[in-house]
């Protein structure tokens, strides 16, 4: 019992952390953005090193340092609130290349102790990885587990294994739909359209088709034993051919998805360059989803056994 409550808290807290934690860039990010856009503003955090004074134009100029230890002048439109006590700020800003100073548009809050790094091209949208990536992984895990129990059925002819296989495929389908939805929402805001046949989108689409076909097959066979062996065979064939898909895709279409083989810009998801904080949250989330999957499997199996018992009584 206790671990279920723990699981709820685990996922809830991690989700909250993922959503609430701000994205904050450094002066380096600000300067980098300035190279390609003079007007684009990004969130950044800095500590105040010199409280400065009123600027010529009536604003306020102070000096601040980012987490890398670089310093710059920060220009505020008015004197920032609580300047006397504030150690630092989280602001929305841009780098003014003419005045050589940081132009602060809005103060978002105090200096946050914990923030995710600013990733050019992804920005706030980077947070999807805490939800989308675990879902995608669970899709694959559930599919492999389903295939594994399919093989076990073929070896031992135990219908229990077949049911495990089917339940796992069902959960896989659920996660697959969730991953597809979250991914496509993200794509709308990052790439401009919900669906544009990116290799990853295409491969998850194929996984959806495989799951769909699997259940279509199951519902079309009446004898339990026959259904079990045929669906097991189908999932093995699918598992043997899906990898080819992953080989051929990148050759036919360019990858936009972060982490694609050719993605050099916004794909630090699992590269060594990934921010430590993000990695901790992501891995914890993966663990949470894994336990969630195992729990759902258990519930379904118990339900199955209860149904069998009732059917036996009815016989």
């Amino acid at each position, binding site marked *: 019992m206790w671990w279920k409550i723990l699981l709820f808290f685990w996922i809830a807290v991690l989700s909250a952390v993922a959503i609430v934690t701000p994205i904050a860039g450094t002066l380096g990010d600000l300067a980098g953005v300035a190279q390609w856009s003079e007007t684009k503003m990004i969130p950044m955090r800095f500590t105040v090193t010199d409280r400065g004074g009123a600027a010529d134009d009536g604003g306020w100029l102070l000096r601040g340092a980012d987490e890398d*230890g670089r310093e710059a002048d920060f220009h505020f439109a008015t004197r920032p609130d609580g300047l006397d006590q504030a150690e630092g700020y989280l602001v929305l800003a841009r780098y003014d290349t003419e005045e050589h100073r940081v132009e602060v548009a809005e103060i978002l809050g105090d200096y946050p102790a914990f923030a995710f790094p600013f990733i050019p*091209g992804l920005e706030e949208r980077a947070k999807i990885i805490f939800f989308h990536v675990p879902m995608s992984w669970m899709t694959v895990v559930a599919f492999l587990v389903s295939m594994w129990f399919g093989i076990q059925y073929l070896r031992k002819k135990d219908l229990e294994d077949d049911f495990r296989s089917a339940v796992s495929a069902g959960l896989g389908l659920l996660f697959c739909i969730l991953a597809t939805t979250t991914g496509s929402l993200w794509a709308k805001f990052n790439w401009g359209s919900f669906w544009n046949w990116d290799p990853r989108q295409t491969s998850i689409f194929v996984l959806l088709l495989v799951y769909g076909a699997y259940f279509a097959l199951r519902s079309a066979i009446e004898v339990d034993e026959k259904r079990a062996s045929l669906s097991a065979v189908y999932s093995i064939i699918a598992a043997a051919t899906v990898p080819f898909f992953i080989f051929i895709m990148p050759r036919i279409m360019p990858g936009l998805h972060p982490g694609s083989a050719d993605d050099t810009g916004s794909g630090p998801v699992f590269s060594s360059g990934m921010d430590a904080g993000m990695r901790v949250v992501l891995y914890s989330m993966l663990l949470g989803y894994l336990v969630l999957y195992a729990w759902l499997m258990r519930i379904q199996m118990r339900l199955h056994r209860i149904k069998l018992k009732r059917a036996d009584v009815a016989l």
Partner: protein
Amino acid sequence: MKKRYVIGGAIVAVFLVIGGLSFLNSSVEYATLSKAEQSGKKVQVTGKWVQDMSTHYDTENNTFMFYMRDENDRIAKVVLDGPKPNNFDIATSVVTKGRYEDGVFHASEVLTKCPSKYEGESASDHPDGIKKSSL
């Protein structure tokens, strides 16, 4: 009986790897625009996006058109089968994969190279306003 599955499994594994290798081997050779024009082969060309010349996204055919300048300063019109690549605006250089035909470079892929790590740059590379703190 058991042996059959072991051998079969091994064959499947080996050929999956061979299939996968075909993907690794598929990297096409690098060339310049002039070379691409001569050979008519599918090649990779490294260059820069010419920002002052027009770009166009054709929603109907899902193609993206832009101009690129290669290492030899030759400029060519590039038509990409697909939408505008990720981070295209902030790319410092682009790699296009495709064939040169009828004065247009038909690209099946465009890779963008972006300045992804600002932290690694030395302070002197930064604009005047940003200085490494002496502390």
